[in-house]
């Protein structure tokens, strides 16, 4: 568990992640960017490094938006905190999908929600870009880390490689280069 000075209440965790789960339209990285903004920047619940480690694990282990919430919740209040964060995050989407499913199977058509998404998507992209810039400023120092970031970007955008594979490749690279450095230095 964390050595935070003040204990964050479970209610606070639940409410925070419910609000994220209610407004984080765009899914996936949109959620990550929001959790970063709110839990790292606004509330200082978790450090930027720890958050990014959690994100790396989360991307390797499946649905990373949910995983990042679970990780942050666990960091704050252990197992209970993790479960509460996960439930809080999924809960609004669950209610929304249940409602929409009911409408769909009753009337056989989808409600027109796409129009709203046309407005939220660009804003989400803006948020993700800002988070990427802030993370990059802290994490990218020197040529080799800049190169690694570029290769990861290219592998995802142009080669359409799965994030888990990109990260496993980066881990392998990181192990090899630290081994070489130790040998030489």
């Amino acid at each position, binding site marked *: 568990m964390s050595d935070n000075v003040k204990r964050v209440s479970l209610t606070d965790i639940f409410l925070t992640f419910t609000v994220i*789960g*209610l*407004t*984080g339209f765009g*899914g*996936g990285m949109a*959620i990550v960017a929001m959790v970063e903004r*709110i839990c790292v920047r*606004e509330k200082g619940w978790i450090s930027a490094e720890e958050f990014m*480690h*959690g994100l*790396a694990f989360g*991307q390797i*282990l*499946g649905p990373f*938006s*949910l*995983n990042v919430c679970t*990780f942050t919740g*666990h960091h704050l209040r252990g*197992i209970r905190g*993790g479960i509460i964060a*996960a439930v809080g*995050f*999924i809960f*609004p*989407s669950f209610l929304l*999908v*249940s409602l*929409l*499913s009911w409408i*769909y*199977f009753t009337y056989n058509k989808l409600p027109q*929600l796409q129009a*709203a*998404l*046309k*407005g939220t*998507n*660009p*804003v989400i992209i*803006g948020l993700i*870009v*800002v*988070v*990427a*810039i802030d993370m*990059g400023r802290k994490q990218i120092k020197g040529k080799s880390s800049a190169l690694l970031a*570029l290769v*990861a*970007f290219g592998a*995802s955008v142009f080669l359409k490689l799965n*994030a*888990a594979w*990109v990260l496993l490749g*980066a*881990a392998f*690279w990181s*192990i090899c280069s*630290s081994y070489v450095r130790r040998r030489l230095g």
Partner: protein
Amino acid sequence: MTSLLTIAWIYFRIGLMFVGGGYVLIPLLNHIMVEQYRWLTLRQFLDGLALSQLTPGPLAMLATFTGFRAGGFPGALVATVCIFTPCVVLMLAVGRNYNRLRKIDIIGSTLDGLLPAVVGLVAAAAWNLGVSSLSGVKEFLILAAGFAIFKWTKVTPMIVILGAGVVGLLLN
């Protein structure tokens, strides 16, 4: 109606399998829901996919939709809980061991070495989302406004996103 126990078992297995990434789920769920159990037609499956992507939750919210079809509201609840249980448990295990693992030199330095790649992946997500959803001047203007707000103000994301949703409804 399928029994809740059957639903629980099916979705729990899917949850175990989808460690590794959301998009494995689409062919997997399609096979199970449409071909094997015939809970849905292909058309309904695709509509459900679109519908679950409307929400902030992960793609696996498709479990809620298909579970609803298979067993009503209780089915949706059981399906959702069961599909997410394996990855939550796994992530809790990671969190529990994280501080210990991080102190082991080789693991700590590998984790730190990974971080530039994480930055690259975050940027790639913005790029991929941009390619699929920035289609006109309007979108680029909203993007610029969003970027400026997040970069230079402390406005909380919820307000910006909800505001952008309203703008989207009005413009389209």
